[in-house]
């Protein structure tokens, strides 16, 4: 037998993922191929891109393994030869199937992951862990490409020149974070800044300049709705600044004593930041109606300014407690009406018109008042009509508050700022940023800061390199990095600069950027890395490191315990986000904008439907629920938003809560969740074919090939005249389409009751224009009927759920393969898939728990082989 050179090279380095052997095709198999297969699958016809016209199988070609595995699958499943072609006898078929299976098992072995570059998230976490500082890649960092359905596969993780340029650039930023360049101290002279009433930032109606003062009447929490700050002052350096501010109370009323807070806030920070979240530098009680000077020494960090906040103003636009703010606001409005019935009568007459807000609304009311002729005698602020009116106005929330505050500027209670002066810095204080930096640097350099010798450098670099490279550093490696650091110092740079250079280099090294370098079974350290990146998207922690070092991690008991430990770790959120986001396509959701004719959709709705699925999958994992739970659970997570989509009664709150469901119903499980229904539609209409293909790929584990490019896609008839089924039936009449569509269409149709945002529907909508308004009407009835290939009749999604629960191994295999692809970063080999089948069967017998499945996969040969 002639062995190709390549396989000799491969075998010299241990087990390769394919044997590298060449297998001559057995005589009886060859005869079978000639008789039943080659008419369509030879080099000339190559139907479905499959060519089986060989006299031997060259296992060194990864493509060959895939082709013969496909052939095995088709023969074993009875899908080939096609019904209308000559059929082999049962005996002929069995002997060919078993020959192929044996050869595939021997040659297409578990393993074969190509070098894996760190993904964006893995890179971020790896830099953070190596340097022990929180680290974020810049926004402009390139995203990873999806391959085999996930963005962490070896083949998909390409290293491109722009990415390498980013790595190099970021290496400096990262090294700076522990070893910053020396800073020149800036000298700032003490000065006094005089701030008049016109020199404050105003947003909405936070203040009003009148009679030479700046008047404030609101205590709303977001700064932009309740506070003012000087617009041309910010601390140039961290220090103590003296504030003098002249304040007076304006018509505070008998039982109200205004309190003013000075807060500190970054001058170009978020204008909608919460005042309650800022530290209070000073508190002044303003009792006098004549200006009084208040003084305070306040500490400001560099770039901060002084916010003036009327802490206890009666009026605010905060919708703090879910249902209390509306009656409170209405009550305050009625209070105004009692004090000024004419205002009430005028307001009643004015009502609310679109875009009424602040001054413009008040002016409209005042104009009505001026016209006169109002019936003030009969105006009773305590009558039901007026009360109802006040509640109706309260619905305008912010717009109403702004209008009321304009009114209060004339009547009080309010406070007046006459002038303000800031002098400073009186003295310097520790700059928060600089202090934090000092601590980080001290931690990186360890106890012996001040020394600059080689031994000291080694004490710092060796543990860093091991953390960065995720395995013990060889003497040669340490030597190289030490060399570059020390040489740099000899050339006249600081000791820290030498380390800085070594850190920069290590973060661009193949040892940092790539994992899975050694062939064959994973050693302890590579196993620790694969496990850790799988379940936490981060490098191994100290426990895994220890177990890898003492060689016990490969012990199945230890490995099992470690897997269960990581599944409880807070970082498992990374796995849940990343795996679920990609498997169930939740990552597509932000890009889908539902048709506004269907419903109004906003970011909070998006968050609700996404979180439902995330919390749902997290619970299945946390509680080790059986896999059937994915399909037919007795719970889900809802807030008012997705509850409304589902037509389920729920408290009027944005908080997600666990809700009990009946099993077997229209709601519950990934086949019914709004997130999945959205991800498998386009926001406008649904297409059973797309959902069917998606189900086969992601739930049933029986993916179909891409459609031939010559066939146009079936597009729904938006006029509503023809049903999608009519259109598809015509499509299916073509024999070349029918093969796949009898697999695709039935499960796809079973989901037709879910509209593009996952609401239940019995009819398709049609939109008609009536008096310039688009009105939705019921169109054709939804017809979700279908028959699966094995003859199972489906009336709607509930039958599909039942079918999947009864045949849970289909879903189990699908999910297990997805998990293994995600964990190993490779397309699965024949041997891998056989491993999966065995594991799924075993786990099913043991209760089918989701955690148990993950543990069993981690223990498998497939997971533990490169």
């Amino acid at each position: 037998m002639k062995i190709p050179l390549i396989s000799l090279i491969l075998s010299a380095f241990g087990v390769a993922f394919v044997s590298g052997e060449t297998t001559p095709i057995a005589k009886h198999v060859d005869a079978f191929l000639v008789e039943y297969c080659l008419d369509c699958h030879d080099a000339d016809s190559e139907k479905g891109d499959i060519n089986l016209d060989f006299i031997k199988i060259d296992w060194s070609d990864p493509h060959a393994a895939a082709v013969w595995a496909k052939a095995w699958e088709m023969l074993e499943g009875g899908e080939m030869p096609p019904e209308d072609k000559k059929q082999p006898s049962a005996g002929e078929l069995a002997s060919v199937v078993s020959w192929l299976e044996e050869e595939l098992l021997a040659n297409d072995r578990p393993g074969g992951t190509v070098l894996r570059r760190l993904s964006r998230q893995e890179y971020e976490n790896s830099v953070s862990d190596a340097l022990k500082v929180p680290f974020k890649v810049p926004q402009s960092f390139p995203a990873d490409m999806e391959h085999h359905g996930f963005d962490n596969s070896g083949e998909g993780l390409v290293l491109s020149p722009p990415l390498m340029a980013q790595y190099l650039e970021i290496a400096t930023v990262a090294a700076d974070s522990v070893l910053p360049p020396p800073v020149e101290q800036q000298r700032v002279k003490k000065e006094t800044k005089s701030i008049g009433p016109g020199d404050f930032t105003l947003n909405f109606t936070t203040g009003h300049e009148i009679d030479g003062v700046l008047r404030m009447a609101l205590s709303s929490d977001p700064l932009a709705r309740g506070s003012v700050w000087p617009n041309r002052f910010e601390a140039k350096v961290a220090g103590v600044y003296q504030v003098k501010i002249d304040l007076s109370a304006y018509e505070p009323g008998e039982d109200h004593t205004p309190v003013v807070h000075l807060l500190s806030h970054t001058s170009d920070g978020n204008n909608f930041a919460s005042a309650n979240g800022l530290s209070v530098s000073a508190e002044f009680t303003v009792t006098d109606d004549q200006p009084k000077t208040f003084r305070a020494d306040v500490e400001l960090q560099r770039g901060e300014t002084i916010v003036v906040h009327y802490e206890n103003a009666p009026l605010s636009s905060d919708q703090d407690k879910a249902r209390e703010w509306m009656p409170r606001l209405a009550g305050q409005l009625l209070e105004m009406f009692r004090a000024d019935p004419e205002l009430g009568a005028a307001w009643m007459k004015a009502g609310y018109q679109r875009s009424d807000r602040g001054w413009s609304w008040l002016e409209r009311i005042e104009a009505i008042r001026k016209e006169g002729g109002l019936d003030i005698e009969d105006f009773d602020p305590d009558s039901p009509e007026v009360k109802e009116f006040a509640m109706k106005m309260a619905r305008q929330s912010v717009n109403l508050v702004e209008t009321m505050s304009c009114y209060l500027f004339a009547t009080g209670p309010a406070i007046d700022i006459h002038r303000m002066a800031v002098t400073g810095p009186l003295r310097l204080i520790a700059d928060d940023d600089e202090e934090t930096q000092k601590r980080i640097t001290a931690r990186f350099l360890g106890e012996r800061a001040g020394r600059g010798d080689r031994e000291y450098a080694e004490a710092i670099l060796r543990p860093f390199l091991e953390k960065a490279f995720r395995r013990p550093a060889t003497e040669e490696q340490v030597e190289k990095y030490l060399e570059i650091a020390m040489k740099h110092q000899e050339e006249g740079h600081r000791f820290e600069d030498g380390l800085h250079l070594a850190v920069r280099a290590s973060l661009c090294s193949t040892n940092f950027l790539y994992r899975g370098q050694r062939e064959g079974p994973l050693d302890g350290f590579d196993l620790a890395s694969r496990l850790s990146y799988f379940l936490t998207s981060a490098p191994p922690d100290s426990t895994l490191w220890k177990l890898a070092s003492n060689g016990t991690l490969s012990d199945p008991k230890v490995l099992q315990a470690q897997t269960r430990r990581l599944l409880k770790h807070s970082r498992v959120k990374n796995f849940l986000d990343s795996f679920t986001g990609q498997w169930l396509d939740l990552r597509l959701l932000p890009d889908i904008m539902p048709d506004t004719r269907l419903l109004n959709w906003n970011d909070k709705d998006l968050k609700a439907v996404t979180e439902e699925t995330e919390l749902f999958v997290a619970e299945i994992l946390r509680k080790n629920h059986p896999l059937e739970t994915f399909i037919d659970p007795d719970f889900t997570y809802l807030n008012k938003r997705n509850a409304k989509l589902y037509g389920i009664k729920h408290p009027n709150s944005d908080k997600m809560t666990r809700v009990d469901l009946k099993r077997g119903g229209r709601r519950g499980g990934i086949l019914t969740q709004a997130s999945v229904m959205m991800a498998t539609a386009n926001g406008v209409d649904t297409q059973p074919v797309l959902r069917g293909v998606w189900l086969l790929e992601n739930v049933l584990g029986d993916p179909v090939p891409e459609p031939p490019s010559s066939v146009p896609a079936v597009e729904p008839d938006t006029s509503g005249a023809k049903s999608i089924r009519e259109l598809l039936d015509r499509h299916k009449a073509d024999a070349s389409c029918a093969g796949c569509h009898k697999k695709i269409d039935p499960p796809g149709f079973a989901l037709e009751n879910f509209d593009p945002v996952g609401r239940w529907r019995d009819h398709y909508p049609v939109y008609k224009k009536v008096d310039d308004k688009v009105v939705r009407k019921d169109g054709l009835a939804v017809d979700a009927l279908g028959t699966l290939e094995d003859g199972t009749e489906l009336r709607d999604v509930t039958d599909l759920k039942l079918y999947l629960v009864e045949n849970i191994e289909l879903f189990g295999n699908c999910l297990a393969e997805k998990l293994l692809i995600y964990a190993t970063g490779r397309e699965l080999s024949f041997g891998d898939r056989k491993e999966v089948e065995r594991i799924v069967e075993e786990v099913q017998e043991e209760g089918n728990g989701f955690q148990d499945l993950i543990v069993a996969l981690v223990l498998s040969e497939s997971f533990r082989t490169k």
Partner: protein
Amino acid sequence: MNRRHFLRSSSLALSLPLLESFRPLRAAEGVAATVSVKRLVTIGTYLGFHTPSWFPKTHGRDYEMSKVLAPLEDLREEFSIFSGLDHRAPNGHKNWSNFLTGKGTPGISFDQIVARQIGDQSRFASLQVTCGSPGAGQMSYTKEGIALPAIGRPSVLYGKLFSSDSDKARMEYILESNGSALDLVLDEARALKREVSARDAEKLDEYFSSVRDVEKKVQKQRKWLEVPTAKVDFTLPDYDPVAPDLSLECEGIIYELMALALETDSTRVISMLVPGQGQVFTIEGEKLSAGYHGLSHHGNDSDKIAEFNQVGTEHVTRFGGFLRLLYEKKDAEGQPILDSTAVLYGSGMGDANTHNNSRLPILLAGGGFKHGAHHAIDRDEETSATPLLGDLYLSIMQAMGVEEERFVKAKRNMNDFVL
């Protein structure tokens, strides 16, 4: 190194007397046979304009200047106005960014398509700026659909453009020492390549070719560092006007810095987002009656529209100042920088009152294009010949030598209008 001020030397070469007595700035003249645009500036106002007050009532060359564009009267031969253009893309605040991306979903923006092609001709491939805090707005997006952050602090922008000697020394030091870091990791990678399987070795070739590419890039960066930073006559105010109510003041300074960036050839692609939040502006000593965002939802109330237009006029006035600067500043050939700079001005918001993103206010200035007219495009006509805003982008790109066949839904050009 002789830190000769190349900006000065180039400005010595220009013939100064030309500047003064032109009213309008420049008479209408024939257009050069071939338009060659070297720079692109895109400017978008987040809240847009009251378009009935922005679009001229008449069209053609003798159009009557609209109310809000009145501050540009003396510049009318320097720009073209387009009404009826948009991308046929989704509506809403969130979709404002389709102004430069052409679609509702994230994707590369017009300015970044250009920057990818011509970015390596200057120190900064592109600059993104805004005035103070950008609020919710985003304008420039990478190929991957990631929004690029914009600089809104004048002192930071100034520092970036005209970095101090110590900043440059640090950059030079990092680039130089990176060389030895790359030598080390290449060594390691070569050793690794000898140990791994053939497939992995192939995978490592990505690494080798990427590092080689980066080494070339480092050479280029070092060359830019040798070019002395232009010394410019510009004094920043002693405070950064980043407070929201000072954003108009900030806008003026950012425009000046943008002109300096182009004059010193620090970059050839700039995008500027003119932000709009709830701030209450003071215009000519008078506080407006409501916040800027509130005014944009004017509900067709004439008083609010008048105030909204006051803010719009302030924006346009500053924009006019920017165009005049680009006219006064000359390139190496002594020609106005404006003549080789395409300046797109407008908004992703067609009507802020209803959050409608169609019929965008669009103005194209400079670039040597044929100007002086208001082109009213009949959007309702919806034939295949009805141009989209993307067609205008395609014309600009063609004039810049950036070969793109289509821009989202647009696949023709508007050469008939501007050449």
